[in-house]
């Protein structure tokens, strides 16, 4: 087991380095640089702009720039943001908890909706309730996120006036804090729930057709026990895998939701940094997010081995 984990961790090193290289060159392929952004359109001064480029090292040949950044990266230094001058690591770590908070809330909402509905629909396959529940949950999936978010804002903030429409407060176990979390996490959670629900339904169907379920039923176990104790446990394996993928995506990809709800997470930071051509920040964020992505899928793989008895025996 430990050997497997170590091998996987070792295998992530080339992946991360590969991502670092791709990120470095990709972001430089996009026309325009940070000096253009910092100066803006209403002011221009070629001499000053050249001085600023020299200050950021943008006048150096690309290989030199790459090596400067890459050698620092190998020592764990992600450099300084061109926009703010602050260390990239510091800015990322400041926003990371905010992103994690939204991700966890969204996952919890997604799970509370998707698992029961998934089980229910699997057990009542092809009945009216199955169709209705599936269609309802799929509506969540088929609305673009920004659109669902705006609709919820209009409904709960403008018309009912019960929730703040956007913003974020420092984490605390108070209503003051949670009221800001509700709308963004529900928006995100509903779109995640659709996929998880489908996965739960699909793997429940598969598991309920297995011999051991038939055996359990034959033994005279109550239906509830059969479904929850024997069915669900085995059905959860692919669900956990999907959750892992979603978690990875949640950490970096909630851009649109963050924008609509003024949620200052990593996703909007990535977009902003790309638009600012803040190279060190884009590169740092990409490597950081990729690292978590890889870490989460590693954890999921390990969880998988424990959940699946057959694999466990083999592993």
């Amino acid at each position, binding site marked *: 087991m430990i050997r497997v984990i170590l091998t996987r961790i070792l*295998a*992530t090193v*080339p*992946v991360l380095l*590969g*991502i670092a290289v791709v*990120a470095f060159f*990709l*972001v430089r392929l*996009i*026309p325009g640089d940070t000096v253009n952004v910092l100066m803006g359109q209403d002011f221009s001064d070629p001499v000053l702009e050249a001085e600023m480029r020299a200050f950021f090292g943008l006048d150096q040949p690309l290989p030199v720039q790459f090596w400067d950044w890459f050698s620092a990266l190998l020592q764990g230094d992600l450099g300084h943001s061109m926009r703010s001058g602050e260390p990239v690591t510091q800015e990322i770590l400041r926003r990371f908890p905010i992103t994690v908070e939204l991700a966890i809330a969204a996952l919890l909402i997604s799970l509370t909706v998707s698992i029961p509905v998934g089980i229910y629909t699997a057990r009542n*396959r*092809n009945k009216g309730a*199955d*169709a209705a529940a*599936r*269609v309802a949950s*799929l*509506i969540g*999936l*088929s*609305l*673009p*996120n*920004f*659109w669902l978010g*705006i609709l919820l804002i*209009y409904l709960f903030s403008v018309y009912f006036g019960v929730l703040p429409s956007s913003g974020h407060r420092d984490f605390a176990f108070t209503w003051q804090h949670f009221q800001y979390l509700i709308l963004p996490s529900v928006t*995100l959670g509903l779109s*995640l729930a*659709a*996929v998880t629900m*489908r*996965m739960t339904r*699909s*793997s429940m*169907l*598969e598991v309920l*057709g297995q011999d051991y379920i038939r055996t359990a039923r034959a033994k005279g176990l109550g239906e509830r026990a059969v479904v929850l104790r024997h069915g669900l446990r085995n059905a959860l394996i*692919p669900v956990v*895998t*999907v959750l892992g*993928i*979603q978690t990875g*995506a*949640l950490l970096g*990809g*909630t*851009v*649109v*939701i963050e924008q609509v709800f003024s949620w200052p997470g990593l*996703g909007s930071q*990535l*977009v902003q940094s790309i638009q600012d051509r803040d190279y060190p920040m*884009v590169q740092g964020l*990409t490597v950081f*997010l*990729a690292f978590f*992505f*890889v870490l989460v899928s590693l954890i999921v793989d390990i969880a998988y081995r424990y959940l699946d008895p057959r694999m466990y025996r083999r592993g």
Partner: protein
Amino acid sequence: MAENTPIAMSAPASEPGLPADAGPRRTRRGLRVLRNLMRDRTGVVGAVLVGLALFAALFGPLLAPYDPNLIHPDARLAAPGARFLLGADELGRDVLSRALHGARISIVVGVLVVLCAGAIGVTVGLLSGYAKGLVDGVAMRVMDVLFAFPTLLLAMAVVAVLGTDMRNLIVALVLVYIPAFARVARASTLSVVEEPYIEAARAVGLPHRRILFRYVLPNIMPPVLVQATISLAYAILVEASLSYLGLGVQPPDASWGSMLATGKPYLELAAWLCMVPGLAIMLTVLGFNLLGDALRDVLDPRLRR
């Protein structure tokens, strides 16, 4: 942005015992799938919705009453009525015509992305799952790089370097979706090659190519198909999100996503600007998802009773 790149992780629906081979049997199997599909009511609804969407994509431009990009300066935000059946947008353009033309862009983007990403991804997954060892390791690590890479950065870079037009949008989305298909295909291949009939085929000394394409490929198709329907729905949504961020189709051309994004500020003044593309996206995505679910059910051997 693409909030998540979902993957169909269903276990491979391998057929115990029988290899899926030989022409006539496959035709019969196809018919059976179709027959079973017709029995699934939600599947039928899905198929009808998908059919409508495809029809709109193919013939929509012929049905459009106006040039979709023609500005009528006097008809800014005109309500639905006799002149404009579904109203006019913020530039006085016919919403119905734009939605019909937009269907082509949205669905062509979705279908092409899935076809290209599917073809490349399945090939990679199939080969690496079959070859194992070094080939597998390298191919999958490359896929990891693609997969762990922020969709948005990839899309922005591709679009910024190649320019914002539909072809480049498709290239960007294909890159994003390849790893999902590769992973699904590889996972299924790994378990299919353990099946006795593949071992038998190898023992008989059949060439690899024949084993791969006649025996392995047909048996990994069910999860790949499910992945395809999910991805298709997502590709349409991602196009909408990219349009929201200004990276989608270029004005004045319309896609459902760009219509939704530019119509959004007029939610209260002219709800039809968002209702029309919003409903179109919703019904199409719903259709592909219902069809995907039904296909999955029908293709699963254990449920075929």
